[in-house]
């Protein structure tokens, strides 16, 4: 007996199974993707009503139930700038070290594992650590500088990984070509490798801005203030920040219902930051025709 006779009628049923299974997967795929986009759409539509010039540039009043979110925007900008200033140089240098210098596999593996571990630590643990080291031990108090350092630690693994990927994607022949011309390693990196890698590195930077700007737990105890009617005067002062502001006005406050509009608006601003960061990063990626894999 050959399989032919045994399986004469099977062909149709297996094709039918395929049609059914793929149909289900298609529907599931679309449903899930639709759900995810409903969430974004919801925030965008509800938030759009709250966005106005006064909202973006005004001071909060009535415990967040009215007024604007200007100090929170400024605060988040300060924190993003601070954390990027700290994490970026270190991250890029250490990415260069891992990819260009460290030849000992053991060292590279160790650094990479540490990197992975650091990126898997929950953000609230960073908050605890930041409070213990920066706020209390170093006595910086709740301040922009304490918050920036805490956020910088969080962004560091991301920056390192992007840099590494960017450098890895450059063909070795460029390095050898430059070295063969008598350039030192450092010159090779500075003159040949970095100029080629920097579009991808910038992409990573922008994505990490998106990430940092939305983090709440790390800044809860290191910098964030619920309400300030003035802008910070120095880096040793606390600030308001968008994500914390959203948390505060949506969960506490005198009049939660009245704060809802403000909350939708704040949520939209946060989503918009991430959206813009991604769009810019994508545009850069396409513009330079290179591929960076982020995650």
């Amino acid at each position: 007996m050959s399989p032919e006779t045994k399986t004469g009628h099977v062909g149709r049923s297996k094709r039918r199974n395929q049609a059914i299974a793929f149909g289900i997967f298609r529907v599931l795929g679309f449903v899930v993707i639709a759900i995810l986009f409903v969430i974004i759409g919801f925030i965008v539509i509800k938030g759009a009503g709250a966005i106005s010039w006064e909202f973006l540039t005004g001071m909060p009043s009535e415990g967040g139930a009215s007024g604007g979110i200007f100090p929170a925007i400024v605060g988040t900008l300060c924190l993003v700038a601070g954390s990027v200033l700290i994490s970026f140089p270190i991250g890029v240098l250490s990415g260069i070290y891992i990819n260009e210098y460290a030849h000992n596999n053991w060292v590279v593996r160790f650094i990479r594992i540490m990197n992975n571990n650091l990126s898997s630590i929950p953000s609230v643990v960073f908050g605890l650590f930041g409070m213990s080291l920066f706020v209390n031990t170093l006595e910086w108090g709740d301040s922009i500088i304490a918050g920036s350092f805490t956020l910088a630690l969080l962004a560091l693994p991301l920056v390192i990984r992007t840099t590494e990927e960017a450098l890895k994607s450059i063909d070795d022949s460029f390095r050898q070509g430059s070295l063969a011309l008598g350039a030192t390693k450092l010159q090779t990196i500075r003159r040949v490798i970095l100029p080629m890698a920097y579009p991808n590195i910038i992409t990573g930077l922008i994505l990490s801005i998106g990430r940092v700007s939305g983090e709440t737990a790390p800044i809860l105890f290191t910098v964030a203030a619920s309400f300030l009617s003035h802008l910070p005067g120095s880096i040793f002062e606390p600030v308001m920040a968008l994500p914390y502001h959203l948390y505060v006005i949506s969960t506490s406050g005198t009049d939660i219902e009245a704060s809802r509009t403000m909350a939708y608006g704040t949520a939209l601003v946060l989503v918009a930051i991430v959206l813009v960061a991604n769009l810019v990063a994508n545009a850069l990626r396409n513009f330079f025709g290179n591929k960076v894999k982020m995650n």
Partner: protein
Amino acid sequence: MKKAFKRFLERCTEGLLLLSGGTTSLAILLIVLFLFREGASFFKSPNIESGYVLAVHPENPVNHLSPEQIKRIFDSEIVRWDEVGGPAMDIELFRFSDMVQYVPEERLGADFEHVPAVVDSIVMAHPGMIAFYPEQFVAPEQQLKVFPEATIRPEDYFLGHDWQPTAHPAPQFGVIPLVLGTLWVSLFAVIFSLPFGVAVAVYLAEIASERIRKVFKPLIELLAGIPSVVYGFFGLVVIVPLIQKGFNLPVGETGLAGSIVLAIMALPTIITVAEDSMRTIPRSMKEASLALGATHWQTVYRVIIPCSISGITAAIVLGIGRAIGETMAVLMVTGNAAIIPHSLLEPVRTIPATIAAELGEAPKGGTHYEALFLLGCILFVITLVVSITVEIISSKQKSNLT
């Protein structure tokens, strides 16, 4: 001369690079150091409210009570000494504020100088009494037996069933309800998102056309970047009311709300990781299956899914890890009651949410503060285990396919 300087410069730069390479390791080291330093001193804290002592009749053989026993005694849940290893006697409670019921206020003296003697006489007159009073009134001439200063033991913390950091006279720091709450919420989050996540991953990796994939993949990656507080807010204004109405509950802030929000947040991660692992399966494996007359669907479920099972597992573990550590979204929607969960429709409280909610109120350096740092340590260890597991699982897939 110039050359030597140049070489020196190169060396310096290399040193700088090495230093930067070590930053992450240093950061982890510091995190461990600070977290565990603060956390470890928790076990040096007294097991009752600081500044107070417990005393009993000298003939009472009981010398030590756990925070849980103290709480239950003062809540009148334990009413007899034999329940805590003492004699067969009823327990009588004496709080400092009860003093005036026993003696008129004048007898305490202008500066309360007679208090030690009064306490002593009251306790001596009641063999079954346990007294809770400020340390400053302990005096050498007292006959009653003051419990030796005891610290919170690890088992009180790790096996305790009660989390009430501000309870009198003994604050309760039992992490079991928090640990269970965390696992409970995270587990259901993954159970909810797994089938959908894998289905979407299969759809994107195998079924969708290249064009659709190119549009959806970056969009899904973008969703992974939306701040958790935004998801929490969405949960608060949409999912919580839905649950409240749907199940007819007094409050919608429940474990279920937390699980759903976390499931939505975990979806992009699960989809991306699972899809990536399906796409790393060598083309030849797929072709081999098709060449044997298998349909595409048969190839998917007989070859592609089994081959990428470790990638999918890594996605699950990663999802659990993220869910366990997620703070803001959970804090906003779970209702934060520190009780051991019995159903998904009750409020629960997770470890990260507890830290975020309570650290602001805990006095710096106090027992409560240290207890929260210890929670941070637990969280750190859990996620470390998770990340190592992911590492092992994904390196297994790589070696499996080559």
